[in-house]
C-alpha cells in the first residue's frame, strides 16, 4: 500500500476540519439553525474517526501489522465508491433546489400574489367605504332624525325608516342606541332568531363621545362582519348612535383569507429563502455524512471480517517462519478463506509432525555420532597410547590410519601419512613390511602372522607382525587390511638370554669342574716331567698352551656365569666426573686416549661399578680397534635435561653395517678371541639402569653413546 493511500484518511480529516471551520456559525449571527450544529457534530465525529483511522494506519504500517494494508485499501475503496456518487448527488440536489427556488420565487408569482392581496384588500376597503357612506347617509336622514327627536318616539315609523335604510344600503342589521347605550330600535334581516342585544364596543362609545363615524371588522369562526357606528344628532345634539352591520359574503371572505394566507406563506418563504436553501443543503449534508459514516463503519466491519483470516494467516505464517509450529488458526468462515485456513492448519500439523520426526532422527543421529565420537576418541587414544604399531590400509593400497607407535617402532619418515600408497613407501629396510602386506593381500586366509627382523637405527628389532583382511559385513562396508606390529625384541632377547644363561650355567658347570684338574695336571707335568722331556722347548710350549687355554676357558666360563647371573644394580647418586676421572687414571698410560671431562658437576643415578665395567668394555674395544692404527680414542661427557651421556669415539677401522645390526647380541663378536658377551652385558646393564647404549656411528669415528638418568626415576617412569 502506498504512503499516499495511508495518508488519505489524515488528508480527508484535515479537509473536513477546514469544512468545519467554514461551516462554523458567525458570532454576529443572532440565530443559528440547529441543523448546522448537527452537521458540525457529524463532521467532527467523522474527522475524528478519520484521524483515528489514519493514525492507526500509520502505526500499523510502522508495526507491519498483517492484513492492515488490504483492510485499509478495502475501506478506502468502499468509502470512495459511496463518497463520489453521494457527493455528486449532493451537488446536483443543491443545484436543483437552487433552480427550483428561482422558479418558486419568480417575480410573476410575487406580482400575482400582490395583486390578489390588493383585490382582497380592495373588497374589504370597499365594504368599509360603503358602510361608512351609508352611515353618513343614515345619520343625515331627516326622517330618521325627526323620528328620534319626536317624543314619544314612534317606533313603527322609526322601524319602517330603519328598514327602508337597511334595505337601501344592503345592511344585514341596523340598531339605534340612546345616550345611555340602551337599544332603542333594531331592524335586522335575520328575523327573530337574532334578537339578543349586543353590548356596545369601545368604538361606539367613542362615536357617542366624539360624534365620529367609525367602522370595525369583527372576525368570528365562520364569518366576518363589518360593523359601523354613526352619531344621530337632533338640534345639533347627539341623541343616539346608529349601528349598522354587514355580514361579508362567506365565499369572498374565504377566498380573501386564502389569498392572505398564501401571501403570508409566500412572504415567509421568500424571507427564509436563504435559510431554506441552507437548511436543504445542511439536510443533504447530514444525509451524506450519515451515509458516509455508516458506509465507513460497514466498510471497516466488512474489511475487518474479510481481512481478519488473512491477518491471522499472515501472523501464523510469521510464527511458523520463526519456528513455532504449534500455531493453529481457530476458526474461519466457510468460504475460500476458510478453506485456506484449513489447508494452513493441515500444513502446519504436517510440518510439526515432520519436524518432530526430524528432531527425533537428529537426536538419534546425534546420539549415534556422540557414541561414534566417543568410540573414535577411545580408539584414537588407544591407538596413540598403544605400544603396538597399527597400520590400516584400504583396498587400493593407500594408508588410512597410522598410529604413533608404528612411526616410532619403524622410525618412519614424514612421508608416511594417510592417503599415501604403501607400495611407494616400502623401500630399503622396510621392504619386509611390504612383503608381509603383499602376502596378506594375496593369501586366502583372513589372518596372517609373521616374525620380522628389521634393523632400525642400527638396532635389530624383532617384530611380530599380524595382519587381518577387513571385508564383509563386520567391517561396515570397509575393505582393506589391518596390520599390527609388535616389537618383541626384548622378549626374544630375554628368551634368548635365558636360553643362553641356562646353556652357560650348564656349560660352566660341566666345563669348570674338569678345567682345574687339567690345569693342575698340566702344571704338575711341567714341574715334574720337564726335566724328563726330550725336547724341553716343545714340552714347555705344550704345557703352557694347555695352561693358557684352560685359563682362557676359565675366563670364558666366568663370563658365561656373569651373563647368567648378572647381579642386580645398586644405583645411587654419583658424580659423573668421578667416573670420567677413574677412566682417565685407568687409561692414563695410553697417550692416544683423550679424556674430556664434564663441563659441570653432573650427577648420575647409577651403580658406579657396573657403569665402570661398561666404560672399561667400551674403552678396551676402542683401544683394541686402534691397536694397529694407533688412532686416537676420545672419551667425553655431556648431558641433556634428564640424561647423562658418555661418548666413546675411536678412529679405528669401524664396524660393518651387518655387524652393527648384531653388535649388541650375545655371543656376537668380530674378534677371534672375543666371547661376544661384552657389549651384550653392557647393553643389559644400561637397560637395567633405565638408560641405553647406542651405536651412533659405525665408522669414522666409531661412536658409542651411553645414556644414564641423572636422577632416580619415578615409579611411573620406572
Amino acid at each position, binding site marked *: 500500500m502506498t504512503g499516499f493511500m495511508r495518508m488519505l484518511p489524515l488528508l480527508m480529516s484535515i479537509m473536513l476540519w477546514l469544512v468545519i471551520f467554514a461551516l462554523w456559525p458567525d458570532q454576529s449571527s*443572532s440565530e443559528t439553525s*440547529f441543523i448546522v450544529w448537527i452537521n458540525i457534530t457529524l463532521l467532527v465525529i467523522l474527522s475524528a474517526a478519520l484521524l483515528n483511522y489514519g493514525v492507526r494506519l500509520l502505526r500499523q504500517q510502522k508495526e507491519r501489522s498483517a492484513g492492515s494494508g488490504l483492510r485499509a485499501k478495502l475501506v478506502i475503496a468502499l468509502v470512495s465508491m459511496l463518497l463520489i456518487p453521494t457527493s455528486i448527488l449532493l451537488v446536483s440536489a443543491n443545484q436543483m433546489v437552487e433552480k427550483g427556488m428561482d422558479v418558486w420565487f419568480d417575480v410573476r408569482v410575487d406580482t400575482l400574489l400582490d395583486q390578489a*392581496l390588493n383585490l*382582497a*384588500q380592495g373588497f*374589504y376597503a370597499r365594504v368599509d367605504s360603503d358602510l361608512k357612506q351609508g352611515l353618513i347617509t343614515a345619520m343625515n336622514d331627516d326622517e330618521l332624525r325627526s323620528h328620534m327627536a319626536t317624543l314619544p318616539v314612534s317606533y313603527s315609523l322609526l322601524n319602517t325608516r330603519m328598514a327602508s335604510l337597511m334595505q337601501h344600503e344592503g345592511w344585514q342589521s341596523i340598531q339605534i342606541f340612546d345616550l345611555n347605550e340602551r337599544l332603542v330600535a333594531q331592524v335586522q334581516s335575520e328575523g327573530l332568531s337574532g334578537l339578543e342585544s349586543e353590548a356596545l364596543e369601545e368604538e361606539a362609545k367613542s362615536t357617542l363621545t366624539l360624534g365620529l363615524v367609525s367602522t*370595525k*371588522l369583527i*372576525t368570528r369562526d365562520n364569518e366576518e362582519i363589518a360593523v359601523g357606528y354613526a352619531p344621530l344628532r337632533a338640534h345639533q345634539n347627539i341623541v343616539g348612535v346608529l349601528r349598522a352591520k354587514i355580514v361579508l359574503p362567506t365565499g369572498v371572505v374565504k377566498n*380573501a*383569507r386564502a*389569498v*392572505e394566507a398564501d*401571501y*403570508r406563506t409566500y*412572504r*415567509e418563504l421568500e*424571507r427564509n429563502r436563504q435559510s431554506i436553501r441552507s437548511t436543504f443543503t445542511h439536510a443533504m449534508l447530514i444525509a451524506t455524512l450519515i451515509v458516509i459514516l455508516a458506509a465507513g463503519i460497514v466498510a471497516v466491519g466488512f474489511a475487518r471480517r474479510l481481512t481478519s483470516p488473512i491477518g491471522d494467516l499472515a501472523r501464523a505464517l510469521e510464527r511458523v517462519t520463526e519456528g513455532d509450529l504449534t500455531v493453529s488458526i481457530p476458526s474461519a468462515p466457510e468460504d475460500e478463506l476458510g478453506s485456506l485456513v484449513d489447508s494452513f492448519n493441515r500444513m502446519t500439523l504436517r510440518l510439526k509432525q515432520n519436524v518432530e520426526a526430524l528432531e527425533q532422527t537428529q537426536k538419534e543421529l546425534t546420539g549415534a555420532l556422540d557414541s561414534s565420537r566417543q568410540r573414535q576418541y577411545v580408539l584414537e587414544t588407544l591407538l596413540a597410547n598403544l605400544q603396538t604399531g597399527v597400520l590400516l590400509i584400504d583396498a587400493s593400497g593407500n594408508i588410512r590410519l597410522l598410529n604413533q607407535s608404528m612411526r616410532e617402532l619403524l622410525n618412519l619418515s614424514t612421508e608416511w601419512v594417510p592417503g599415501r600408497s604403501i607400495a611407494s613407501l616400502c623401500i630399503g629396510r622396510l621392504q619386509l613390511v611390504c612383503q608381509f602386506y603383499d602376502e596378506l593381500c594375496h593369501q586366502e586366509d583372513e589372518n596372517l602372522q609373521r616374525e620380522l627382523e628389521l634393523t632400525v637405527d642400527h638396532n635389530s628389532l624383532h617384530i611380530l607382525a599380524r595382519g587381518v583382511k577387513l571385508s564383509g559385513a563386520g567391517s561396515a562396508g570397509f575393505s582393506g587390511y589391518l596390520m599390527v606390529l609388535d616389537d618383541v625384541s626384548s622378549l626374544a632377547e630375554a628368551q634368548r638370554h635365558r636360553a643362553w644363561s641356562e646353556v652357560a650355567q650348564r656349560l660352566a658347570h660341566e666345563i669348570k669342574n674338569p678345567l682345574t684338574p687339567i690345569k693342575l695336571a698340566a702344571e704338575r707335568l711341567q714341574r715334574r716331567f720337564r726335566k724328563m722331556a726330550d725336547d724341553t722347548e716343545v714340552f714347555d710350549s705344550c704345557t703352557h698352551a694347555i695352561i693358557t687355554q684352560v685359563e682362557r676357558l676359565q675366563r670364558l666360563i666366568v663370563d658365561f656365569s656373569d651373563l647368567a647371573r648378572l647381579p642386580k644394580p645398586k644405583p645411587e647418586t654419583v658424580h659423573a666426573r668421578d667416573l670420567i676421572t677413574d677412566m682417565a687414571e685407568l687409561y692414563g698410560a695410553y697417550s692416544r686416549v683423550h679424556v674430556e671431562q664434564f663441563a659441570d658437576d653432573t650427577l648420575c643415578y647409577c651403580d658406579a661399578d657396573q657403569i665402570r665395567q661398561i666404560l672399561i668394555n667400551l674403552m678396551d674395544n676402542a683401544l683394541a680397534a686402534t691397536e694397529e692404527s694407533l688412532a686416537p680414542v676420545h672419551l667425553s661427557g655431556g648431558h641433556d635435561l634428564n640424561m647423562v651421556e658418555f661418548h666413546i669415539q675411536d678412529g679405528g677401522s669401524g664396524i660393518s653395517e651387518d655387524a652393527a645390526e648384531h653388535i649388541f647380541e650375545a655371543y656376537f663378536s668380530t674378534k677371534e678371541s672375543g666371547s661376544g658377551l661384552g657389549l651384550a652385558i653392557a647393553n643389559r646393564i644400561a637397560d637395567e639402569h633405565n638408560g641405553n647404549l647406542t651405536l651412533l656411528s659405525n665408522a669414522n669415528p666409531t661412536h658409542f653413546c651411553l645414556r644414564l638418568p641423572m636422577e632416580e626415576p619415578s615409579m611411573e617412569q620406572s
Partner: protein
Amino acid sequence: MDIRYDDKVIYCSIDRVDISDQAILALNQGTPVTFVWNIIIEEVNDYWLNKNVGEITIARQAIPDLISKSLIISDAKNGISRRVATIDDAIEFLSGLDHFPILDRSLLKPGVRYNIQVQFHIQEGQFSDAWWSESMRLGTTVAEEEIRLP
C-alpha cells in the same frame, strides 16, 4: 430597566427595545411575531452559583391582518387581544414593559442582593409554549439590574 416595588409587588419597566428590521418586515408581510420576555430573579451568592428565586415569561404577539390592514395584538399567555391599525402601535405594545408586576415581595428577603435579568426573544410565526419550543428559544439579555430591598 426600572425596578419599582410597593408593599406587596415588585414591578419592572423596560423601555422600548430595538426591533430588528426582520421582525418589522415579517409583520408587514403578514407573519405573526411574538415577543417573548423572560425575567429571571436570582439571589446573588458571592462564592457559589446564584440561587434562582423566580422566573417569569411574558409572550406578546402581533398577528397582522393583511386584508383589513390592521394588527391583532394579544398576550399569548392569557389570550387578551385587541386590534390596532398600525405596526407602530403594535410594536409599542410588544417591545416594552410598563410597570409590569414580576414578583411577590414576600419572596424576597430584606438586605439581600437580588439580580434581575431580562432576556428578550423575537419569534416569527405561530407561537408555541411547548417545552421543545421553549428550549429552542435563546434569548438575548437586554437588561440586568441588582436590587437590595430595605
